[in-house]
């Protein structure tokens, strides 16, 4: 069994991005999705700081500290890009103009509740950023996260233990072991890592998992993490 690495998880999430979508990518694993959008598609990547049409990362020669994405990474602009201020960017987000946001998470509940802003580490300051606006208002919320914490605790839960970012918002979860959709009946596994049984996966979750009748093997290309 070879769980997906972080780039492979981003690759898998990116395969679900459709032609013409306006997509907001969160800090961390989600921003890597921009590199794996299927060939031939044209997609608008929205960065919350107002870069609408974010391109690839800038190389050393073109890196510009005034041209950054939500993760402070120095980027380029895609053709057709515009740059707007933060109030207009969040008007775009709250106004329902974002087709999908792909975010990281700590926990997702079977009813779609999302917890991704407060790990309750004593005295560490809260970090909300744009996550609450995005989770509450994007037309779809997709999550990339490991199926379990480093200590092995379930991240897919009957109810979130950590403070919520938004209730009932998550639609799809791309993990290192499975792809899971959030439905009216709860978690529905649509892809499962080869070598892992449904029982194995269920044992790693804190909520009932349903398995799609056409559940497929979760496979990705080999993508090496940078050193």
């Amino acid at each position, binding site marked *: 069994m070879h769980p997906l690495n972080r780039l492979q998880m981003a690759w898998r999430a990116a395969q679900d991005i459709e032609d013409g979508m306006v997509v907001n990518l969160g800090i961390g694993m989600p921003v890597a999705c921009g590199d794996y959008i299927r060939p031939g598609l044209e997609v608008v990547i929205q960065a919350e700081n107002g870069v609408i049409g974010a391109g690839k990362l800038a190389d050393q020669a073109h890196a510009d500290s005034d041209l950054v994405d939500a993760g402070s990474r120095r980027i380029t602009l895609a053709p057709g890009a515009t740059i707007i201020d*933060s*109030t207009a960017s969040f008007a775009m987000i709250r106004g329902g103009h974002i087709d999908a946001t792909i975010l990281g998470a700590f926990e997702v509940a079977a009813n779609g509740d999302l917890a991704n802003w407060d790990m309750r580490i004593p005295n560490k300051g809260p970090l909300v950023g744009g996550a609450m606006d995005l989770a509450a208002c994007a037309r779809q919320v997709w999550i990339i996260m490991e199926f379990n914490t480093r200590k092995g605790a379930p991240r897919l839960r009957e109810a979130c233990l950590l403070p919520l970012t938004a209730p009932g918002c998550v639609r799809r979860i791309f993990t290192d072991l499975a792809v899971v959709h959030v439905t009216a009946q709860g978690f529905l596994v649509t892809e499962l890592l080869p070598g892992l049984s449904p029982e194995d996966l269920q044992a790693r979750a804190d909520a009932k998992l349903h398995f799609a009748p056409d559940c497929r093997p979760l496979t990705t290309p080999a993508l090496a993490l940078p050193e």
Partner: protein
Amino acid sequence: MPIDKRVASAAEALEGVSDGAVVLCSGFGGAGFANVLIAALCERGTRNLTLVSNSATHRFSFTHQLIEAGLVRRVICSAARGHAAGLSPLEELWKDGKIELTVLPQGSFAESLRAGGAGIPAYYTPAGVGTQLAEGKEIRRFGTRDYLLEEAIIGDLALIRADVADRWGNLSFRHAQANFGPAMATAARLAIAEVRITQDHPIPPTEVQLSGVFVNRVLAVGG
């Protein structure tokens, strides 16, 4: 008399700023921080500040210097977590009860400033409903959805960064420099922009991204 908002030094730019000021500091991810003005405010030693900054301790923003110098008693932001594993100066002061911290979703942070500058005292937003950040705030249902009442933010001082200013205080920005700047300038009684260059002749009207009506002083700092 010709309008001319250009000032010669950061000290002159900050003239009249007093203790207890609510200071709005723009900037996101390395773009748009008015670091020359923030450093000057730090040197000035104005105390008891309320710092309104999206990411209060961003490593590229000198706002952390204001906090470390003990000049800030309250922070309003969307991100307060330090980058290091240990506690940042802000987190230390917060833990010890020496800084009061208010956290807002980033869209509400921006919209509260926009509202403050636009004469709107409060507004309803869906962001934050059903979370800890909704505690103590009014919830009202419109149609089929619940919304949270958020209040406007008005500042005494806005420190923003732009690319070019003309003598009327009209501004144009480079790339993603604008971010919170336009909203903060509108929401402050005294809005100061530090810019790469100032010019005598007007910026072409359709290239002005923020009207000089919202800007009180401009300081050329190069860069």
